[in-house]
């Protein structure tokens, strides 16, 4: 990339607010209509969903009480780091189990951008946590390391679960710190 390109990347922050437009020009000759620029309008769209965690609800109750829960299949002992209430392997119902607070980083990334909802939180670190004897992983955030220092050496890092004091009943009520 040359110098001109890097200069072009310096930009004033733009927002989507503006003026309300009440009139548009209109041609005398209808033939000219096809040459006119499109009319683009803003349509806000806000919804409150009534989302049920259903069978997974005890996981969130666990977080509110400082416990990280997974599930285990009775017949085949397959253990889920993210709860599933029926076993993928044998189809039997699973039981709730408490997972150890200490796990290890299976993989990670540092998000410098994100979906709009999370843009304000960047840069943030996503990890998949692994535990010995647990067959599947758990997606969470890692805090307490320098995002700019990202390196493959983070894989295998011992991490410890911490819980938010003020539960929001979201999976982010738990997060991990080194150690």
């Amino acid at each position: 990339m040359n110098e001109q390109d890097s200069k072009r990347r310096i930009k004033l922050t733009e927002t989507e607010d503006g003026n309300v437009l009440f009139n548009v020009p209109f041609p005398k000759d209808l033939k000219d209509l096809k040459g006119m620029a499109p009319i683009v309008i803003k349509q806000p769209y806000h919804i409150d969903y009534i989302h049920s965690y259903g069978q997974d609800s005890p996981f969130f109750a666990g977080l509110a009480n400082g416990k990280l829960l997974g599930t285990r299949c009775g017949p085949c002992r397959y253990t889920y780091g993210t709860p599933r209430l029926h076993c993928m392997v044998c189809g039997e119902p699973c039981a709730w189990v408490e997972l150890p607070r200490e796990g290890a980083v299976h993989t990670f990334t540092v998000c410098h951008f994100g979906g709009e909802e999370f843009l304000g939180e960047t840069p943030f670190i996503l990890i998949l946590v692994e535990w010995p004897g647990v067959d599947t992983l758990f997606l969470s955030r890692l805090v307490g390391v320098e995002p700019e220092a990202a390196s493959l050496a983070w894989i295998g890092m011992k991490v410890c679960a911490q819980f938010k004091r003020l539960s929001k009943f979201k999976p982010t009520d738990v997060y991990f710190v080194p150690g």
Partner: protein
Amino acid sequence: MRPVYLVSGGVSKFAKARPDVTFQPMVKEAYDYALKDLGLEHRKAAEIVDGTIASYFSDHFTRQLKAGSMVQDYLGLCPKPSKRVEGGGATGGLAFQSGWESVASGRYDICVVYGWETMSRVNTWKGNEFIALASDVSFDYPVGGFYSGYYAMMVVRHMKQFGTSVEQMALVSVKNHHNALHNPYAQKRMKIRIEDVRRAEMVAWPLTMLDICVMSDGAAVTILASAEGVDKLDKATGRRPRPARVTGVGGGIDAMRMADRPHAEVILLPHEKAEDYEGLKYPGVHSFRAGRMASKTAYQMAGITDPARELDFIELHDAYTSSELQTYEDMGLCRYGEGGKFVEAGKPFMPGLDYGYRFPAQGTIPINPSGGLLACGHPVGATGLMQAVFALWQLQGSIARHFGNDRLQVKNARRGAIHSHAGTGTYVSVSILERAF
């Protein structure tokens, strides 16, 4: 099942935004192109087309339910039957196979599959939020829903497991953006170097802006026919179509949450042995089991036992440089873990193009000669169909006519594959196309 032929296709030029039209005329651009290429008049098409498949991904992006029927009426194809197919990023590939099913089963002799996406109606970061809703909204999305982040985590594990480097991934970006220089349909056409990819803005470590495809507005159309349908088209146009036969269709699925993927044994292709993968935990998050399953079933049906030798080219779903490299392995073009070396050797580059690098084995099997999603863009419902259209043109030897130059024409291409991929590898489809004239 009876033989199914891909007889024609069309693509609208993919663009960051098409505020000049709503989605229906955009699909019509691609539809009209497909008809014109066959020499088929609009009224005649409306008479002999038996039914259609509508391919579009997101009701959020469109903010219009039942959009498929609005395209059907705009194209003048009412009251012919139609249905919508949706499967995330693989929507186009799945819709194509749904068209194949409706012809193979004997239900339709001629089936039009049309796809589109208008992603410019929201800003990029809202768009990323919509796409992230294609992850578990109880456990994944609220943690920081962002697809580039998910793909970054998958390739970080690949790097750790196999020693894959960011420079190897960057070579995919060099290749696809360079190929696109010769494809007038592409959205991002540029000659870049590995250093440009690495210096571009970091999005989700280690993926930069140039490792990731962009959102687009665009449409694509394919026309599928039985042997009887081909005869009908011949009679209607007075011109024998130059079709490709769909000789293999395959599909696979994996758990929505990456965290739920097993750590078990590799699903082997005919040319692989269990000893090749001793001790490898599979798929984990480093590989796409659905992509392997889709490849295996498509190859089986087409009678392919060694894909790297028996395919002349592939258009595959390179939403990320990393996922193209991972897909080489899923599709059995090299062994698991060797995707980085595969691209470093120059194998997936076009032969005869000067990319500014010297490779020991350039162009043994061109991958994404069109420039793929990275350079063409990814208007989701259209993407998999765009691949089918470009593949047809390769097999017809008609790239020069459609692109205005023949630099991307794979010489004497007889058999190719298209690969469409959704989620973090949740739905994957692979279809095999062979020259049939």
